[in-house]
């Protein structure tokens, strides 16, 4: 019995030991398991973190997107507000009798734009250009654009150089000028180097990097005048030229344009070419002298300002209808003389748009990057006693 007890106890002990060993083996597994669990937990945590991060990123992105959308919405609203406080291009009403060759883009400048437009103001042609410049100023005023219309006293190149240099120093974004002569090239190039856009009208400065030119080809206009003389004097005769200044590029192109046609006709006799500095009184005196010196004078071409003085001298000499007077620019100062036939042919070069279009194109280029075409040649409108009232009704109201 004792033996049995001993054997049972031994068996129990063995079992106990086995169970202990087994237990200890089980605990290792458990440990392993727990380690695995820990690792899993860690992994889960990383995944969670990553997920959180992703979620955060997502949230951030969503927030950003929402912000962007809100900003876009705000911008849209602002743009809508802006477009409501300026007159759209299509709604701009041109002054009576004028056609707008360019319209401003429907976009308001984010930062204030400054454009200088320079011209001679003390003669009728200059005054007509200024009307165009002032209209451009008015049109662009509600687009955050300031247009300064700057006066120059004469066609003297030095005065123009000073005006351009002053505008460059003042930091304008664009300058519109009458390309009086090549002497302006250096000043214009300096302005371009300073980042200023240059636009020319009437006279051009082709040797500079100016953006565009507007006006009538003066040489072609001179050709038109020459052809008018040839047509008026089929049997030949005497004619004279009164030009503004020999030193003004545009005046010279007109004069030579005329001469290149008339010199081809042998029966035409040029009795003289004289400067009147665009002055009507000087044109009056020169015409009187020409008629006295050449009682058989048949045609007179006034290339620039002051044709009204020449017309009055023809009337005072009793030669109205006998002398073919050809001039430029249909303006109030000569309207009556065209109507009564003292001026036979008047070549109009649209001075209004010469003042208006370069300014508006400069704005479009600066604000929307719309680059205008380089050469904008206007067709000559030829007014005579028969059509002047229908072509320019605004002058006869």
């Amino acid at each position, binding site marked *: 019995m004792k033996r049995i007890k001993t054997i049972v106890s031994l068996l129990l002990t063995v079992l106990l030991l086995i169970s202990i060993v087994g237990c200890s083996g089980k605990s290792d597994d458990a440990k392993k398991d727990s380690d695995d669990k820990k690792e899993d937990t860690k992994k889960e945590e990383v995944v969670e973190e990553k997920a959180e991060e992703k979620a955060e990123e997502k949230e951030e992105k969503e927030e950003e997107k929402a912000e962007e959308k809100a900003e876009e919405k705000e911008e849209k609203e602002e743009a809508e507000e802006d477009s409501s406080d300026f007159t759209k291009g299509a709604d701009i009403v041109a002054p009576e009798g004028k056609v707008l060759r360019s319209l401003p883009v429907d976009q308001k400048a984010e930062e204030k734009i400054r454009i200088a437009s320079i011209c001679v*103001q*003390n*003669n*009728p042609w*200059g*005054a*007509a250009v*200024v009307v165009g410049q002032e209209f451009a100023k008015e049109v662009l005023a509600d687009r955050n654009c300031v247009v300064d219309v700057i*006066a120059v*006293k004469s066609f003297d190149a030095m005065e123009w150089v000073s005006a351009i240099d002053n505008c460059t120093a003042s930091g304008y974004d664009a300058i519109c000028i009458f390309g009086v002569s090549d002497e302006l090239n250096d000043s214009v190039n300096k302005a371009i180097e300073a980042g200023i856009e240059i636009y020319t009208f009437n006279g051009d400065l082709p040797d500079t990097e100016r953006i565009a030119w507007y006006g009538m080809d003066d040489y072609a206009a001179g050709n038109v005048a020459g052809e008018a003389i040839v047509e008026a004097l089929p049997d030949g005769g005497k004619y004279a030229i009164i*030009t503004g200044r*020999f030193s003004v590029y545009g005046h010279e192109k007109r004069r030579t344009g005329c001469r290149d046609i008339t010199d081809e006709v042998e029966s035409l006799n040029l*009795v*003289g*070419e*004289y*400067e009147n*500095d*665009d*002055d*009507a*009184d000087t044109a*009056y*005196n*020169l015409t*009187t*002298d*020409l008629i*006295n*010196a*050449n*009682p058989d004078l048949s045609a007179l071409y006034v290339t620039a*300002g002051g044709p*009204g*003085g020449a017309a*009055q001298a023809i009337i*005072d000499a009793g030669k109205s209808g006998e002398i073919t007077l050809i001039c430029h620019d249909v*303006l*109030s*100062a000569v309207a*009556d003389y065209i109507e009564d036939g003292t001026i036979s042919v008047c070549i109009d070069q649209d001075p209004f748009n010469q003042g208006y279009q370069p300014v508006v194109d400069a704005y479009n280029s600066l604000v929307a990057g719309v680059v205008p075409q380089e050469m904008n040649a206007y067709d000559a409108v030829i007014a005579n006693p028969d059509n002047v009232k229908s072509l320019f009704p605004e002058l006869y109201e």
Partner: protein
Amino acid sequence: MQKSGNKVLGEKLKYFFSQQEIIVVILILIIGLFLCFARPDSFPTTLNLFNILKQASQYAILAVGMGLVIIAGGIDLSVGSNIACGICLAAYINEKAGGISPFLVLLLIFIVGFVFGLINGILIAKVGLPPFIATMGMLSVGEGVALLLSNGSPIKYGESWISVFGGGYLGPVPVQVIVMAVVVILAWIFTKYTVVGRNIYAVGNNPRAASLTGINTSRISILVYVICGLMCSLVGLIMMGQLKQAGPSYGSGYELDAIAAAVIGGISMSGGEGRIFGVTVGAILMALLRNLFVQIAVPGYWQTVVLGLVIIASVSVDALRKHRR
């Protein structure tokens, strides 16, 4: 006895021919004779000769005013803008009011001329500004006002009885030539036979000495500028009558023509010397030269060269004469 008589006659002749206006008259005769041969059909005609006088009248009237200013030791650069300002104001008011009395137009033109002259005189005589600066400032002011009123384009005036000053004729004689003759005669009497007229020379010669002798130099200065202003008004009236319009560029650059006519006619730029008769012949020479350019078709580029040479020659004669003394 006869020898001393001849000597006196010789001295008189020497004195006579030393006068610059006489030299100018001789020059006019030479050019006139040349043109009679060069253009016998068109130059020596009544129409052309009166035309020359007509053109000379504007220079001469202005040069009378400018001459008095220069004799008194000053200069007036504002004459051109004075002309434009006066006629533009009158034509502007006439246009805006739908037509006013021609007498009022005339009055307005002369008021502007008077005010211009008065301001010039006060700035120079009372404020003490140099004449060159004061009148240059007024030139700019006048030009600006004329541009403001006209917007750069001539204002139509049309015709009324005041147009006769610019476009009227008395027989074959243009009215403006008669106006010139009256102005020159009155100015000659004023400078030669009145105390105030003679005082102008005294002030121009030596203002300090003139002041010490009791001459009110300030008053004389103001007076000559006012007279010059009124002469501008007269020329403006002629221009408006001739062209039937009033433009902001009318008269532009005329200050130089008036100075040139005065200097050619023998008025010394340093003041105190010169005669009204000389101013008139100076103006006639300038008009004759311009007529010559057309009569013999002088190429355009040469015209300004010739005018410049004549002015230089005249001033040189004046300078050499002084140097000899």
